[in-house]
């Protein structure tokens, strides 16, 4: 690995996350969704793996906490799915409902479907990083 690759790869991390974030929040209005965002973000991290190796990656919080990331995502999606039962609606009734106008944060609409998508994002992100990390650790290293 040359110094150039190291520098470039490190520089690429932040943009890849930004793109992932954009895909996530724009998902409802434009191309993209939680799944794609999760994979893009994970690919950004995995690129670091190639260059810096498993041991260095331990320093990144998202690698150490991949399982928690997945679990949180699943829990979030489950919450969005089943909480409508608490107030008597059917499963996965999103609010605000049809016709009601949602709260805006800039141009982003805050709706429960978005929370659901965020859950998928977290789950997929955790899965991709966690699975590759586990495989990387389990692979027998050839003596160099």
């Amino acid at each position, binding site marked *: 690995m040359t110094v150039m690759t190291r520098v470039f790869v490190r520089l690429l991390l932040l943009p890849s996350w930004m793109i992932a974030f954009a895909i996530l929040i724009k998902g*409802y209005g434009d191309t*993209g969704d939680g799944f794609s965002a999760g994979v893009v973000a994970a690919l950004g991290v995995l690129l670091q793996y190639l260059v810096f190796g498993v041991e260095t990656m331990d320093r990144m919080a998202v690698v150490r906490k991949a399982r928690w990331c997945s679990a949180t995502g699943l829990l979030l999606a489950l919450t969005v799915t089943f909480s409508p039962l608490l107030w008597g609606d059917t499963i996965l009734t999103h609010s605000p409902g049809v016709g009601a106008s949602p709260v805006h944060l800039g141009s982003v609409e805050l709706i429960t479907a978005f929370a659901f*998508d965020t859950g998928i994002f977290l789950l997929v992100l955790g899965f991709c990083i*966690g699975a590759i990390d586990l495989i990387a650790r389990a692979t027998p290293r050839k003596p160099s």
Partner: protein
Amino acid sequence: MMTLLAFSAALWSWHRPGEGINREWAPTWGLRLHFQADGLASLYALLATGVGLAVVVYAANYIPVHLRHQHRGDHEIVRFYAFLLLFMGAMVGLVLSQDLLLIFLFWDLTAIASYFLIGYDQENRNSRISAMMALLVTGISAIGFLIGALLLESAYGTFQLTELAVMAEPGHRLTIAAGVMMFAALAKSAQFPLHFWLPRAMAAPTPVSAYLHSAAMVAAGVFLIGRIHPLIEPSETLLHLLTLIGIASILTGGVLALSRDNLKQLLAYSTISQYGYVVLMFGIGGEYGVVAASFYVIAHGLAKSALFLTAGAVSEATDARELSAMGGLWRQMPVLAVAAAVSAGGLAALPLTMGWFKDELFFKAAYQENRLIQAAAIVAAGLTFAYMGRFWIGIFMGKPRGPVKSVSPLLVAPVVALGATTILGGIWPDPFTRLAGSAASATLLAPVGIHVEYAMSAETIMAFIAFGFGTLIIATTRLWSPAATRVAALGARIGPERAYSLTLYGLNQFSDKIHQIEVRDLRSRVASVLFPAALLVGATLLSFDVAEIYDHGRFQLRDIPTAVLLLLVAIAAIAAAVPRDHYSMALALSGVGFALAVVYSLFHAPNVALVAVLIETLFSLLLFGFLALLPGDIDHAQVVPSDDPASESNIHQARDIVLAGIAGLFAFVVAWGVLSRPAALESVIEQHIVLTPSAHGQNIVSVILADFRGLDTMGEITVIGIAFLGIATHLRRRLAR
């Protein structure tokens, strides 16, 4: 204590029938929680709780001793009571239910509870086999009940028995539906030819037999016949079938009961025979038939449970289980002898017991029918008289053999109580006939009033002929007993039990074979999914008019890029199938994926294309990661088989190619067929497109994923979570090494 309360509650509800409960349960499926304490329910609930009370008292003494015999801890008694009370609850729930699915639910609950009760001595292989047999016979036949219920629901749109009884019209559908439901009932009542599970179930501790196999589980079968009688009645065929099965069971049970030496076996065959009576009476039908059936169930339940408890008590006293190993017990156990005599007399229909009236009603019902049924009735009563005589005389009369221990009064008291009830019914039958009458009116959906008393009539003469016949049988034991034993041996060799075990064995072998083929290696696993799927799909396809489905449209200039890409996909796919090393196969596979992603983008589906590209990337990474985990020296040998033409791997390879070819061919045919006719899907998609803005979105794919089909997505992401867990558990173990 609680059982006493339950019994009182059942008694109270009989005297004051309430409104019942009728609530919605799962409205989209039309399920209702519909309970109603009508006459039929009262009868069986009283029987289940009343006999249950006697058995619970008895078991309080019997089970601890039983456990001590087997060197088991006292705490196991908890399991006994738990399942016994579960059974009682299920039984009461069953008889109160007015909804077919609810009946099915409780029906299966009784089967499950009985499984654990019959298999209570779980260390004993024989009890485990018996428990499984009882569960299989009654459980599989219960599916028949479900089928019948669904058939009726599909025709009339309700599971409510009260509505069905009014709506159902005679016809093939009703006959079939009622027939399969009747089948379940007959299996539960241990009727010929599915009677064999009952004698086997005698492996259960005596209190279980006394409860399940006299007044509860087997009674549930005839209860069900009483419950669905309005559905059976329109069909002459079914009624004739009931009559025939009833007579067959009476004869089988009766003859075999005469040949048994083991006390409980004798009683078990007697039960088969006695419920044969009840089934026969339902077959005869009419006011008398149904009242007689209901009355019979009461008299039989009380007497038979008392006799089972007697068998348990004398076995406890003598450590013997065979008639030939005991005798002369009346000296040591006079109270039990009298109580047992009353109960045996009750079954044998002696005067001054409730049994007299049960047979009087039985003969009254039979008297209206033809000579054959009258003769069968007399033979049946004679057989009962004979084996009951054999039972009682064998235990209490004759020469004493071996030492006799004294038993706790708690083992005798329930027998006395049950015997006293039998006598009470013989002296003052009114409450019992009223109970039977109200049960019959619930069955016939019309008021019934039948009164019995001691009077000379044709029935009395029939009864005395039966007594004479019975005495004759007892007196001539020497003459017929070898023949009866031979019949029993023949039945064991070619009877239905043999068929059952052969079927079970065969199915087991078959399943083992399939399993062995499936798990031999990864390829057979994949093949065992793809190949049957291809066959199923193929069979469906071939049953359609194929020519019309296939259509390839016109090829236009603007299709060229798509065609080129698809050609690339095809080449990559073929390359992936050619065995080389794993990495090139994986690369070829991802080539397929990426090319397809480009095709999506050509079809103006940016979102799908984006996801496809990302998935391909991720999959390739995972695939390569896993390939790196494989031990490197083995994979090559597996992919490229050795050159030896006779080697097994060559045969396997040829087989794999054939199977894969067939699976691929059908997948291709189906895909083509679907793509030629995408019309049906469009309407849903159009709706989705229209509705997307109202779900606060513009990206149709996202909205479908998160909203319209959100539950599917939820399921899929749960699978991702589970897959993650799986990978983690597997690889962590590897890391630990």
